[in-house]
């Protein structure tokens, strides 16, 4: 009972544990695996990422030169980033927004 009263008063006087989202957004740590993107100028369209993608989310064609990612299938595992010979695939910190 004493513990409970202590806990109630402590919580009454301490700040809230929750962030006032969307006014205050959570800061994502460095190295968070978020949205996958490409620096298309560097891409050689070799198709290594498409071949390795475990979720079949990538589509690469040489003629016409195109690199397409289906964000609904992407599982953000980062395997494409590892295998890219030109290191042109990057992961942003933030995640896909609901209206991708």
């Amino acid at each position, binding site marked *: 009972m004493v513990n409970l009263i202590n806990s109630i008063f402590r919580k009454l006087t301490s700040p809230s544990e929750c962030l006032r989202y969307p006014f205050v957004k959570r800061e994502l740590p460095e*190295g968070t695996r978020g949205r996958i993107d490409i620096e298309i100028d560097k891409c050689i369209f070799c198709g290594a990422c498409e071949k390795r993608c475990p979720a079949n989310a990538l589509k690469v064609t040489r003629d016409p030169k195109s690199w397409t990612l289906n964000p609904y299938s992407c599982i*953000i595992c980062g*395997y494409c980033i590892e295998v890219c010979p030109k290191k042109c695939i990057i992961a942003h910190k933030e995640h896909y927004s609901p209206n991708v």
Partner: protein
Amino acid sequence: MIRRNTIPFGPQHPVLPEPIQLHLVMENEKIIQALPAVGYVHRGLEKIAEKKDFIQDVYLAERICGICSFMHSQNYCQGIEELMKVQIPDRAKYLRVIWAETHRIHSHLLILGLLADAFGFENLFMRLWKVREQILNIMEKTTGARVILGVCAIGGVKRDITPELGEYVLRELDSVEKQLPELMDSLLKDYSVKQRLVGVGVLPKDKAHELGAVGPVARASGLRMDLRETGYAAYGDLDFKMVVGEAGDCYDRTMVRVKELYTSLDLIRTALKRMPQGPISVAVKGSPPADEVLARIEQPRGELNFYIRGNGTRNLERFRVRTPTFANLPALLHQLTGCELADVPVIAICIDPCISCTER
């Protein structure tokens, strides 16, 4: 003559985190027989694994479970490494232990919170999950993701824990440990909580052995079985001490999980202290040979088995998963027989059911 009624418990029920149906044959308030019906979240994962590359299967194995995901990928990688006779660096073994134990802590805090919610102690549920948030933050900061870590790879791990990150992890663990006693007192010493847990769903030691119970369910009944004692990964160097209960009731199962939280905290601290310097992975070339292996690991819920058979190509011949919840289902049915209907949620939650793992 007392009339018998059958009550369907689930698949959608407020206390069940995942869908399973229990047909409860009742006589008044007493359960005479409990029959499970599974198959609501079957994904055909074992067949998909055969169609994908063995390296892609690491990501697939990680997605068997959404709670102890790292341990699935760890077990898969350990199995493939054994099959391909790959020796991984010592530092990778320690890093695997650190992430596996953070997963154990977050899984135990999750189920203890759900247990509190099952017997109506919502405040405790919220506070346990608040502590769990700190563990998730540790995982996010060290690996880049909160639960599906994606850092385990065949031949080692993908990310390292720098000394600065190690300091951060230790600070967070100290903070978690400071908050635990108050919460655990509420869980283990409170009169009303004890009324709901003590003597409920008793599973005697011999019955636990006979029914093949695993993990905290078996340990709470007094069976000394924890695969971490075999010393896989780096557990052999970390002075691991097993937690064993006696009575085999819901209270002991809760107590085993609470004590394991402290064991895991100690294991992470020791691993961070003793972790050797060096590389974190080795390059793996070739394909799994035409051979078979049974990979075993201690998950938060018990022993996880993967049977892996290669055929010399990039694809696996067979990938079979036996998860701890599957092994604990017969024990659950035994506990339910003879109990009151009001105790069903607590008993069901106390085996820590993970149905999506079970059905794969």
